[in-house]
């Protein structure tokens, strides 16, 4: 191995360590993580939304061919949502526009992520795993409003 090869190898290693350090920093110091294994939650088949604190909510969402239940969720600005999602038939998935939330909805498993909505607006989520002939019509949205009092779920099974 000549000098330039050693240098290249060292720099490559250093670069990867640096990237990895950034990941660890985000995970540990900023608490930005990926979904983990949920075992302490009973399986659910219907969707529900309820308030758990002044600005916190729990949303249980069910994905199915070809709709999200609920398809519209209305919440006040500043809401933090504990979002649980499952599928009642085949694999689905979604990402909420402009938010760091991305979840696979898999039958026989419950997925979870926490998300905070800090700005008002409408944020779409489109199904992003192929789920059959009408997959491209499967979408929903969060409507985040300045007005404090509104919480509402549309298109659910309630």
């Amino acid at each position, binding site marked *: *191995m*000549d000098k*330039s*090869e050693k240098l*290249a*190898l060292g720099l*490559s*290693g250093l*670069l*990867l360590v640096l*990237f*990895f350090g*950034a*990941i660890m920093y*985000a*995970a540990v110091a900023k608490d*930005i*993580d*990926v*979904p*983990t*294994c*949920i*075992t302490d939650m009973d*399986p659910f088949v219907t969707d529900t939304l309820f308030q758990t604190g002044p600005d916190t909510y729990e949303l249980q969402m069910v994905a*199915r*061919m*070809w709709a999200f239940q609920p398809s519209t969720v209305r919440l006040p600005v500043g809401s933090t949502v504990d979002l649980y999602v*499952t599928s009642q*038939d*085949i*694999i689905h*998935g979604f*990402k909420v*526009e*402009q938010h*760091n939330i*991305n*979840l*696979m909805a*898999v*039958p*026989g*498993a*419950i*997925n*979870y992520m926490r998300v905070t909505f800090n700005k008002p607006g409408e944020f*779409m989520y*489109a*199904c*992003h*795993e*192929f*789920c*059959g*002939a009408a*997959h*491209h*019509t499967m*979408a929903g949205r969060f409507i985040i409003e300045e007005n404090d009092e509104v919480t509402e779920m549309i298109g659910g099974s309630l």
Partner: protein
Amino acid sequence: MSDYTFRFSKSDRRLVAILIVIPMVLLFIGVYGGLMQTLFRAGIIQSDPFVGGDYYKGLTFHGVLNAIVFTTFFAVAFGNALIPYSLKMHLNTKIAWTSGILMLVGSVMAAIVILIGEATVLYTFYPPLKAHPLFYIGLTLLVVGSWVASANWVPLYLRWRRENEGKKTPLAVVGIFTTFIVWFIATLAVAVEILFMLLPWSLGWVDEINVMLARTLFWFFGHPLVYFWLLPAYVMYYVFMPKLAGGKLYSDMAGRLVFMMFIVFSIPVGTHHQYMDPAISSQWKLLHGIFTFAVALPSLITAFTLAASLEHAGKLRGAKGLFGWMWKLPYFKKENWFFAYLITGLIIFIFGGIGGIINASYQLNTVIHNTAWVPGHFHLTVAGPVMLAFLGGSLYMVGQFMNKTIRLKTWAMIAPYVYTIGLLIMSYGLKIGGLMGMPRRTNTGASYANPDSVLYQADWMPYIDLTVLGGSIMFIGIVIYIISFFTTVFSKSEVPEEDAVVTFPISESLHDEPATWLRNFKPYIIIAIILIVLSYTPVIYDVLQATYGGSLPYSPDSPVPLR
């Protein structure tokens, strides 16, 4: 050692030619499917004008034919050519033909059920979407055929080692065995998924399937699959390219180290495709992320070694200064058309590699997972360096093995450049669209890109239009290639059959160290197995622990299960 010729038997030559020409036809069907994808996504077409069916059927044959069928055939043909050539020994012809026939029968079977619309499950075939049993059987035959082919090379290698004690195995042979060691370990998982889960379930022998388990086994296979694609391209980069550029491989040891690192780190990384999945603890996802970073290292070493080799070649051609060599390489020499396929692929791979590191970066994956960014990324890898190297290699090998002179060399030389321009435009459109939230695997033309739909997303449109532009240019590039390829295939040989010999552009090394610690696969395979057990045991445990119920099969056309 370079520039020698080897005389293959007529039957061996014919087999290599068949293993290249027939998949080329399937590839072209898949490429046509790719062009249709971009038109569907933009809402320009609503059903396939020639093959019939919707976007998802087209997406299935585009993925299966291009990413699984074409690549597997090429890797096998490449091994059937380079192993005997490098070791100067003859293959067992009967076994080689058996493997070829298994692969052909399997691929045609799978292609037919896809094209009649009985297997619209995409190339990942996630349950509980169910395909026709012949789809799973076809894929199994393709994989088993590739196992048989690679098993046929082992006795040659062992005999060569006995007869050439103390000598270094030719780098091409190391690379090809690396490819197939990774492939063999990885396909074991998908074999378990298909034979013990999907096939009996699709035949109705069992009712239910554990979707998360099947998905996890798929990705055990799915990520090493990308190295199975990439490694034959690496063999061409290390072994052919320095010579084609007019220089030498900068370091032989770097090549050997890279291949051994791929054996060690290719497989315990699959869960990075499942960062957003339920039922797997985040710390195991992180572990797979760490190994993914480790497998980036051999590619960074490759970037250095190949650039250094090209720099050496450029300086031999009279280049001066720090960057002068870049302008002295034979980019547009029609006699050296093969170089064009390799250099364009390498340039694309700079972007492909950066994208790969982004995808691997754990929580950063939240931003891009399953968005259009992902196909934007993998077209810069499998449809970039891999595809271009395989196209160049295919043309070179039909010339050699069918005993033909390459026709339309200017066309052959220009095709990869046209394709590259199209690819960069298309991938840019997909990637930016993905960052805006555009999903992958979605017929956007029928909803998000349709101005009459309530789901219309006006801000995605410029990027969807870019994919149409880029995809069309890519298609033109492939048509130029196909014309040159089939003109060569159907041309008359200029050399009499008895004098037909094969040669490959094998590079010499500038630095040729003994590298005794890199001469044996065994320790690296053992380390790989240890890492696989360590990284996958907790993942499988989590999946079994956290999932409940089983899934009945579904057709893509109805929300009601099939039984």
